[in-house]
C-alpha cells in the first residue's frame, strides 16, 4: 500500500539558483500562487491562527480545495469552492497521498521514517521499511512527533529582544557573529548544542573548530542513552560503543538497563529481542531475560527473573555476577560488593545460565550507570564470549573535542563567553541545578537561541530567539544507532521560516552556500566515496531513505582487565538505604523524554505503560516504603477485590504530595505507590513541570531537574520524603491492577517444571484452552462448527448452541475477504507506539487531564497492564492476599482494542443500526447515524468503545464546560495534521477501532483499479500484507498481525491456527475476530525465585479451582499446584 515517491533528479535550474527545497515542492515554490496560498494557509503570527476561514472537515485537500466563508448561496447550503492549482504540480494527484523518506533525529541516533503527505501536508509517520533492522516500525515519540509540527504553541517568529525580526535580519545576524569572531579566532564565542548524529553537523563543527579554534563547542543532553565512552576507553583502550545483537542472545542479563525503551537504539533492540522471544511452534527457542533494576521498566516487565536492587548497588551486582561468571576475578572484586546484600543463589544460578550459553548470552548495563559498571560488564561479556556474537563494538568519536556543559559553565562564570549560541536543547530547564544555568545565561552578553519553542531558555536572557525548523521542515541527515546514514527530508516548507542547526552553523561559518540541502548533499556525496555523482547519490539516498552500506563496521576489541580495574579505583563504598535515606533514580520519561515533548498532547495523554498515569509524573515509591511513609491506604471493611495500588477516591487517584529532598534541594510532587520498585529507591521521571511551554504542557507534573547536580545526574542518594499533607489528583487510566484471577491474559511457562504438570507450553502448546470458562463448557461453536475450517467458521458463523440461526456471510452480499487480527502477547513490550500511531491515523482527539481523570480518554487501543503475585486469596472476602500489594509483581501487558466480534453485543443493542457488521466481518461504526445512547459501550465486554462526551475537536480543552460560551473551532494549524481519510467525530457519537477501515477500503479500491487496468478485473482479493493497520505497522515487535482469514496462507490465518491462540472472554460466545496468542515466561528452574507457573495462572487456579490445601496432586484436571509453588516461592525468600 505504501509506496515511496521516486524523486526525479533536480533540474538544472535548481543547481543554478541557490535555494533548493524539497524536491517535489520545488515546482510549487516556483509559482507565486502557491506561495500566496501558503501565506494564507499558514499565516505568520500565532494570534491569527485560530483563523476566520473555518473549515469543518479534513476531507478537504490542502492546496487543491478550500471552503469559502460561511456565506450561504441561497438557503440550500453553504457555498464551497474548489481551488485548483494554478499550474499542475508534478507527482501530486489530489486525493492520493505521497510518501517520502525522512528520519527523526534523537540524540545520537535517529528513527528512519516514511511520511505520508496529502498535497504537501505530512499527516502520518511510519517507520521506513527500507531500513531493515526496524522493519518499518516507528517508536512512540516518532509517531507523536508529527503533532509538534502542527503545534499552535510553537515559536512562530524570530525575535530579538522581544521584537519580531525578519528572516533576512536573522541571516544578517548570523553572518555578523561569524565576522565578529572571525577576528578573535572565536574567543568569546561559545556554542551549546544538543547531541546529534548528523554527519553534516559533524562536518560543520569540524569546520567551525578550524575557523574558530578558540570558540567553545559544547553539547549537553539531560539524559544519557548511550554507554559512557570512558568505560570502553578503560576496558578496551578505544573509543567504542557497544551495539547489541539481541536476536542472537538466548540469555540476557540487564543491569538497570531499559534497552526496550530508554537506551539509544531501543527500537532496534526491542525488535531483535522480540525475535528471540517469539515462539510460534514448539521447536522455537525462547530467550530468557534476567533483569536487576531499581525501578520497574518495560524491560523489567518482560523479565523472566527480576531482582530489585538499588541503582547504586548495580556495581555490587555486576561485581558479584562477574565473580560468579569469572571466579578468578572474585577475590579482587570482592571489596566492591561489600555491604550490599544481593542474593547469592540468584547470582549463582544466573551466572551458571550465562556460562552454559557461551556466545549466546549477553549482559547489558544501563547507560546511566557509572563507567566502572560498564567496564565490569564488558569484562563479563568477554568472559561469556558475547563480544563479537551478541555484542559488537563500533567506533564512537562523537565525544571528541566536545566540551561538557560543566566546561562551558566554567567559561561563562569566568566571563570569557561573550556570545552564546544555544542550538536546541533547553538548558535553563534541564541543566544540573548546581550550575544555576539561568543566572549564568543572563550573565552572557549575547545569547542567540535557536529553538523550536520559545521556552525557558529563550525566556531567560536570550537576546535573540531564532525559530528552529521541525525535522519535517528540515533538510538534514542523521545516523541510526548502527551508524547507517539516513536523510532528514522536509515534507513542507518551514511553516514559520525556521532554520535548521546546520543552516545556522553554516551561516556563522560564512559558507558560500548555506542552503541546508546543499550542505547535506555535500556530506552525503563525500560519504558515498570519491567521484560520486551528487545528483544520483542524493536521488538514491532520498528515495531509499538510507545510505546503503553506511552502517558502522564493528571493530575488534580486546578486554584489558587492568584498564577496567582502574575505573574502580575511585569507587566509594556503596550506600545503604532506608526510609530516612533514600536513593533517587531520575529516569527519562516514557513519553516526555527529557521534556522536549511537553507540549505534545498525544504523548501527554498517553498513559505511562507501567504506572498508567497520564498528564503527570509522580514520585514512585515501593509498597514497602509506602507503608513506612504511612501512605498505604486503608482497606474497605470487606475486601472483594485486591487492594488498589493507589488511593482512588471517586475513581480518581488522589495522591499525597511529598517533598523530596536531596542534598538540600527540594521538589514536591505526588507520590504513587509502584509495585516492583527496589524498596528504598524513589523513581522520578524527568521531563515534566515545564514552566514556559504551550497550552498543553502547562501544569503537567513537576520538574525533578532542580534536584539534579552534575555529580548525581541519574542517581542521587541520601534523599528524604516529607509529607506536605496536601493531595493532588492524578489522571490514572487504570484503576485496578489485578486480573483478579480471571483468564484474561493466559500465560504458561515455556519449559516444563521440574515436576511436570502438563501446564507448560512444551507439554501442552494449547495451554490457553485449559484456562477459562471455555475449558470446561461445551464448545460455543457446537459440534458442527468445531469441524469447520477457520474460513468456514468466518463466513458461515456456526450457530453453535444459540437459539438463533446466525446469518451467514456466505450470501450474495458476501465480501471477498474476512478480516481478522492476532496479537502476540508474548512479544508485546507495552511501548505504547500503537496507541499513538492509532491516534495519529484515526484523528483521535485528546481530552485533557481533567477528562482523563473522569475516564473519558479516547484511545482506540490501550495497553492493559496487570500485576500478579500469586498471593490472591481464593474467596472474595478479605484474606491477606487480597489486602496487600505485591512487592514483586509479574507484569502482564495486553493491548486491547475493538476485537470485532462476529456476534457483536454492541450491535445488538444499538437502536438505530449505527453499529452493524459489514460483509467482510468488520464491526463498523457509522458516526453519522449514531445518536449516542452509549448502550453499545455498556454492552461491550472489552470496554473499548469511546464516546465523544464533548466536542473535543472544536472546543478548547480548558473550556469544555463552557459550552457555547467558550471558543469554538479548530486552529488551522491543527487541522492540517488531520488524516483526510478519516471522519472527524463530533460530540455525542461513539467511536472505536475500525481495523483502520480507511486503509482497507483504499487498498481494496487501489487493488481493484490496478487489476482492472491490468486487464484482470476478476482479481479482487487484496494480497496478504498489503493492508497494515496503523498499530500493526508501527509495532516494533510485530506483535500485531492483521489480514484476511479466508486466505489460509495469510499471516493472520497462520497466527490464528497456532495452538496458543485464544479469544479473550471467549466463553461469552461473541466470537472476536481479534484473538491473542498466550504469553510465555521462560524462568530458570535453578533460580531461587523460580515459579512453576506464571503468577497469573496461580491466581487463576486459586480463584477458580476448589482449594486443595496441600493435596495438590489430587486436584484433578484443574488441579492447583500453584499453591505449593507459591509456598516454595515464599520459602525461598
Amino acid at each position, binding site marked *: 500500500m505504501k509506496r515511496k515517491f521516486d524523486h526525479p533528479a533536480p533540474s538544472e535550474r535548481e543547481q543554478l539558483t541557490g535555494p533548493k527545497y524539497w524536491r517535489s515542492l520545488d515546482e510549487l515554490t516556483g509559482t507565486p500562487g502557491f506561495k500566496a496560498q501558503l501565506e494564507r494557509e499558514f499565516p505568520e503570527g500565532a494570534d491569527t491562527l485560530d483563523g476566520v476561514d473555518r473549515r469543518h472537515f479534513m476531507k478537504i485537500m490542502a492546496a487543491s480545495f478550500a471552503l469559502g466563508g460561511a456565506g450561504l448561496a441561497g438557503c440550500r447550503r453553504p457555498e464551497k469552492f474548489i481551488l485548483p492549482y494554478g499550474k499542475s504540480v508534478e507527482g501530486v494527484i489530489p486525493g492520493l497521498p505521497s510518501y517520502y523518506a525522512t528520519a527523526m533525529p534523537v540524540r545520537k541516533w535517529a528513527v528512519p521514517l516514511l511520511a505520508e503527505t496529502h498535497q504537501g501536508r505530512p499527516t502520518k509517520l511510519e517507520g521506513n521499511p527500507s531500513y531493515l533492522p526496524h522493519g518499518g516500525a516507528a517508536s512512540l515519540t516518532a509517531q507523536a512527533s508529527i503533532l509538534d509540527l502542527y503545534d499552535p504553541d510553537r515559536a512562530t517568529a524570530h525575535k530579538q529582544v522581544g521584537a519580531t525580526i525578519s528572516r533576512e535580519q536573522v541571516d544578517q545576524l548570523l553572518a555578523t557573529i561569524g565576522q565578529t569572531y572571525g577576528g578573535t579566532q572565536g574567543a568569546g564565542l561559545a556554542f551549546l548544542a544538543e547531541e546529534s548524529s548528523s554527519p553534516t553537523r559533524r562536518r560543520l563543527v569540524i569546520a567551525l573548530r578550524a575557523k574558530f579554534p578558540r570558540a567553545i563547542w559544547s553539547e549537553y543532553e539531560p539524559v544519557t542513552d548511550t554507554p559512557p565512552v570512558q568505560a570502553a576507553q578503560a576496558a578496551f583502550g578505544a573509543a567504542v560503543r557497544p551495539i547489541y545483537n539481541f536476536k542472537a542472545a538466548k540469555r540476557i542479563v540487564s543491569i538497570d538497563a531499559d534497552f526496550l525503551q530508554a537506551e539509544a537504539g531501543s527500537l532496534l533492540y526491542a525488535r531483535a529481542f522480540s525475535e528471540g522471544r517469539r515462539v510460534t511452534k514448539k521447536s522455537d527457542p525462547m530467550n530468557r531475560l534476567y533483569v536487576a533494576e531499581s525501578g520497574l521498566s518495560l524491560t523489567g516487565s518482560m523479565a523472566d527473573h527480576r531482582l530489585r536492587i538499588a541503582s547504586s548497588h548495580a556495581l555490587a551486582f555486576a561485581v558479584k555476577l562477574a565473580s560468579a561468571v569469572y571466579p578468578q576475578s572474585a577475590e579482587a572484586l570482592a571489596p566492591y560488593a561489600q555491604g550490599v546484600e544481593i542474593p547469592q543463589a540468584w547470582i549463582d544460578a544466573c551466572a551458571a545460565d550465562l556460562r552454559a550459553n557461551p556466545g549466546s548470552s549477553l549482559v547489558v548495563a544501563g547507560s546511566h550507570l557509572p563507567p566502572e559498571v560498564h567496564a565490569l560488564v564488558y569484562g563479563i561479556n568477554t568472559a561469556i564470549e558475547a563480544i563479537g556474537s551478541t555484542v559488537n563494538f563500533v567506533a564512537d568519536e562523537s565525544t571528541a573535542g566536545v566540551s561538557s556543559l560543566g566546561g562551558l559553565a566554567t567559561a561563562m562564570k569566568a566571563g570569557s563567553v561573550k556570545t552564546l549560541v544555544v542550538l536546541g536543547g533547553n538548558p535553563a530547564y534541564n541543566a544540573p541545578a548546581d550550575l544555576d544555568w539561568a543566572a549564568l545565561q543572563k550573565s552572557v552578553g549575547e545569547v542567540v537561541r535557536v529553538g523550536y519553542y520559545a521556552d525557558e531558555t529563550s525566556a531567560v536572557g536570550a537576546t535573540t530567539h531564532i525559530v528552529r525548523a521541525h525535522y519535517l521542515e528540515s533538510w538534514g541527515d542523521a545516523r541510526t544507532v548502527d551508524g547507517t546514514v539516513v536523510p532528514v527530508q522536509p515534507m513542507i516548507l518551514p511553516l514559520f521560516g525556521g532554520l535548521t542547526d546546520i543552516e545556522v552553523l553554516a551561516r556563522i561559518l560564512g559558507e558560500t552556500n548555506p542552503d541546508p540541502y546543499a550542505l547535506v548533499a555535500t556530506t552525503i556525496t563525500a560519504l558515498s566515496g570519491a567521484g560520486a555523482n551528487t545528483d544520483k547519490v542524493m536521488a538514491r539516498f532520498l528515495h531509499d531513505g538510507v545510505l546503503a552500506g553506511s552502517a558502522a563496521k564493528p571493530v575488534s576489541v580486546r578486554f584489558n582487565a587492568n584498564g577496567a580495574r582502574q575505573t574502580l579505583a575511585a569507587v566509594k563504598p556503596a550506600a545503604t538505604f532506608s526510609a530516612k535515606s533514600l536513593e533517587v533514580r531520575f529516569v527519562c520519561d516514557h513519553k516526555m523524554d527529557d521534556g522536549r515533548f511537553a507540549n505534545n498532547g498525544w504523548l501527554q495523554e498517553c498513559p505511562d505503560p507501567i504506572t498508567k498515569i497520564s498528564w503527570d509524573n509522580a514520585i514512585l515509591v515501593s509498597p514497602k516504603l509506602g507503608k513506612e511513609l504511612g501512605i498505604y491506604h486503608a482497606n474497605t471493611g470487606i475486601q472483594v477485590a485486591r487492594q488498589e495500588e493507589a488511593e482512588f477516591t471517586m475513581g480518581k487517584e488522589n495522591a499525597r504530595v511529598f517533598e523530596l529532598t536531596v542534598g538540600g534541594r527540594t521538589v514536591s510532587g505526588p507520590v504513587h505507590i509502584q509495585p516492583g520498585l527496589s524498596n528504598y529507591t524513589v523513581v522520578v521521571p524527568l521531563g515534566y513541570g515545564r514552566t514556559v511551554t504551550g497550552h498543553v504542557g502547562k501544569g503537567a507534573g513537576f520538574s525533578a531537574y532542580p534536584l539534579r547536580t552534575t555529580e548525581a545526574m541519574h542517581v542521587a542518594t541520601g534523599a528524604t520524603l516529607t509529607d506536605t499533607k496536601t493531595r493532588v489528583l492524578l489522571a490514572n487510566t487504570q*484503576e485496578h491492577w489485578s486480573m*483478579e484471577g480471571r483468564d484474561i491474559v493466559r500465560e504458561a511457562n515455556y519449559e516444563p517444571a521440574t515436576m511436570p504438570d502438563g501446564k507448560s507450553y512444551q507439554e501442552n502448546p494449547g495451554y490457553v484452552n485449559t484456562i477459562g470458562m471455555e475449558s470446561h463448557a461445551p464448545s460455543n461453536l457446537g459440534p458442527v462448527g468445531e469441524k469447520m475450517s477457520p474460513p468456514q467458521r468466518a463466513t458461515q458463523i456456526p450457530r453453535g448452541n444459540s437459539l438463533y440461526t446466525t446469518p451467514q456471510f456466505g450470501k450474495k452480499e458476501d465480501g471477498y475477504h474476512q478480516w481478522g487480527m492476532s496479537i502476540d502477547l508474548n512479544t508485546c513490550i507495552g511501548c505504547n507506539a500503537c496507541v499513538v500511531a492509532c491516534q495519529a491515523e484515526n484523528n483521535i482527539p485528546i481530552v485533557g487531564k481533567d477528562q482523563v481523570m473522569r475516564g473519558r480518554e479516547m484511545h482506540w487501543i490501550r495497553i492493559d497492564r496487570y500485576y500478579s503475585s500469586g498471593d490472591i486469596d481464593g474467596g472474595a472476602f478479605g484474606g491477606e492476599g487480597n489486602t496487600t500489594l505485591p512487592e514483586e509483581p509479574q507484569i502482564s501487558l495486553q493491548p486491547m482494542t475493538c476485537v470485532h466480534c462476529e456476534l457483536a453485543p454492541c450491535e445488538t443493542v*444499538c437502536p438505530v*443500526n449505527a453499529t452493524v457488521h459489514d460483509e467482510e466481518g468488520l464491526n463498523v461504526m457509522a458516526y453519522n447515524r449514531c445518536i*449516542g445512547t452509549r448502550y453499545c459501550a455498556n454492552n461491550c*465486554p472489552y470496554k473499548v468503545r469511546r464516546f465523544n462526551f464533548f466536542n473535543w475537536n472544536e472546543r478548547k480543552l480548558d473550556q469544555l464546560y463552557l459550552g457555547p460560551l467558550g471558543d469554538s473551532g479548530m486552529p488551522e494549524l491543527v487541522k492540517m495534521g488531520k488524516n483526510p481519510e478519516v471522519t472527524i467525530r463530533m460530540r455525542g457519537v461513539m467511536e472505536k477501532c475500525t481495523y483502520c477501515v480507511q486503509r482497507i477500503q483504499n487498498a481494496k479500491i487501489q487493488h481493484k483499479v490496478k487489476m482492472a487496468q491490468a486487464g484482470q478485473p476478476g482479481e479482487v482479493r487484496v494480497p496478504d500484507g498489503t493492508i497494515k493497520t496503523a498499530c500493526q505497522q508501527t509495532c516494533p515487535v510485530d506483535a500485531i498481525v492483521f489480514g484476511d482469514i479466508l486466505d489460509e496462507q495469510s499471516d493472520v490465518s497462520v497466527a490464528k491456527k497456532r495452538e496458543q491462540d485464544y479469544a479473550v472472554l471467549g466463553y461469552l460466545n461473541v466470537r472476536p475476530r481479534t484473538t491473542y496468542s498466550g504469553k510465555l515466561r521462560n524462568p530458570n528452574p535453578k533460580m531461587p525465585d523460580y515459579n512453576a507457573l506464571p503468577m497469573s495462572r496461580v491466581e487463576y487456579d486459586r480463584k477458580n479451582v476448589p482449594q486443595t490445601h496441600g493435596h495438590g496432586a489430587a486436584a484433578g484436571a484443574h488441579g492447583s499446584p500453584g499453591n505449593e509453588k507459591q509456598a516454595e516461592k515464599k520459602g525461598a525468600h
Partner: protein
Amino acid sequence: MSHASEHAADAPAILREVKPAVLPRAVLVENNRSFSWITEKICGIIEGKTPTWWWVCFILACFVASFTVAGLTYLVATGVGVWGHANPVNWAWDIVNFVFWIGIGHAGTLISAILCLLRQKWRTSINRAAEAMTIFAVVCAAIFPVFHVGRIWYAWFLFPIPNSNIIWQNFRSPLEWDVFAVSTYGTVSVLFWYVGLIPDLAVLRDRFFATGNKFRSFLYGLFALGWRGSNRHWSNYEMAYLILAGVSTPLVLSVHTIVSFDFAVSLIPGWHTTIFPPYFVAGAIFSGFGMVMTLMLPLRAIYGLKDLITQYHIDCMCKITLATGTIVGYAYGMEFFIAWYSGNPYEGFAFINRAFGHYSWAYWIMISCNVITPQFFWFKAVRENTALVWVLSIFVNVGMWFERFVIIVTSLARDFLPSSWGYYSPSVVEIFTFFGTFGVFSVLFLLFIRFLPIMPMAELKAVTPQADVHGHGGTTGHGAAEVQQAH
C-alpha cells in the same frame, strides 16, 4: 350482597319479606355520603378559591422544576460530558432516574387497570390521582432517555420514519423496544386517564356554566366532548373502559419487562439475568404504591378526604407494598443464589461486589429501604399510623431509586476486564436535573389537583350504597349525611 339482591327482585313475593343477613361490606365511602356531597366535595376543590398553600407550593415547584430545565439546556448546549458518565459507566443517573420514574408510574396504571379488572372497588378513590401520577411520572421518566443521548437532535432516528438515508431501526435492540414500550405506555396512559375524565369534565362544564363561568365551562366542555350521561353512552363507555383496563394490565407488565430487558438482554454480569422481568415489575409496583402513598396521604389530610380515602385503602396499599417488597427482597436473595449456583466467576463477583464493594453503601441503603422497611407493615398499628406510613413510603421511594442505581452503576463499574474498572460519581448537573424532576412532577400534579377532579366522581358514586338500583344501598340518592345506613 348486590348479587343476592338482584335475585330477590325476581323471587316470589314471600321471599321479599325475608331479608337475608347482610354481609359486612367494606365501606368505600364513609359516613354514607350522598351523591351531591361527593360532587360538591370534589368539584369544590376546583371551583373554590385557589388556596395560598397551593400558590406557595406551585411557585416552589416551578423553582425546583427550573433546575431540570436549566440542567437540560446546559446539557444540550454543551454535551453529555456535563454529567458524570465515563467509561465504563456510560449509563448512570439518567437511566436510574428513567427506570425509577417509570416504576413509579406503574402503580397508577396498576391501581386503575388491574384493580379495575379484579373488581377491586376500593381503587375508585385513588385511581384518578394514581393515573395522573403515572402520566406525570412517565413525563419525568421520558426526559431522561430522550436527553441522555449524545445528539438529541437526531433522536428521531429512533422512529421508523422513511428518509433519504433509507436505513431503519434495529429492532433487536431492547432500547428500540423501549421506544415503543414507553411511548405506547405514555399514550395509553393518557388515553385511559382521559377517558376516565370525560364524565367528570362534563360535570364541571355544567357546573361552571351554571355559575356563569363561561370560559372555564367552554374549556371543560371542549374536552368533555358533549358527554351527557346517556346510558347508551355509559354502556359503550364502560365496555371501552374495561378494555382499556384490560390492555393496560399487560401493558404495564410489558413496559417494565421491556425496561428490564435493557439490562437482561445485555451480557454485563449483574445485568444478564432472567429474573429481571418479574423482579422489575414487582419493584415497580412496590415503588409505585410507595409514591401513591407519599402523594395521597398529604392530599387526604389537606383536603379532608378521609371519607373517600379510608383506612381500608391505606391498609390495602400497605399490604401490597409489603407483598411486593417481600418479592423484591426475595429477588435480591435469588440473584445471589443464581450468581453462586451458576459457577460463573464474573457473575459471582458482580454480586459480591454489590454488597461489599465500593458501592456497598448504596446496596445497603437499598436493602434497608426495600426489604426491611416494608416489614413494618405486618403490624396493624403501623398501618393505622398515617404519619408513619407516609414516612415509610418515602423510604420505599428512596430504596427503589437506589435499587436501580445499584443495578446499573455497580454492574457497569466492575465488569469483565479489571483494567477498565472505574467509579462513577454524579456531577452537580445531573443531581440538579434529577432533583428538578420532582419539581416538574409537582408542577404537573399541582395543576392537576387544581384544575381536574382528583377523584372519579362517577365511579365513586357508583360504589356508594345508594347507587344500587334495588334500593338496598341507602334511603335515597339525596340522602343527607346524617341519614344512617338502612341496614
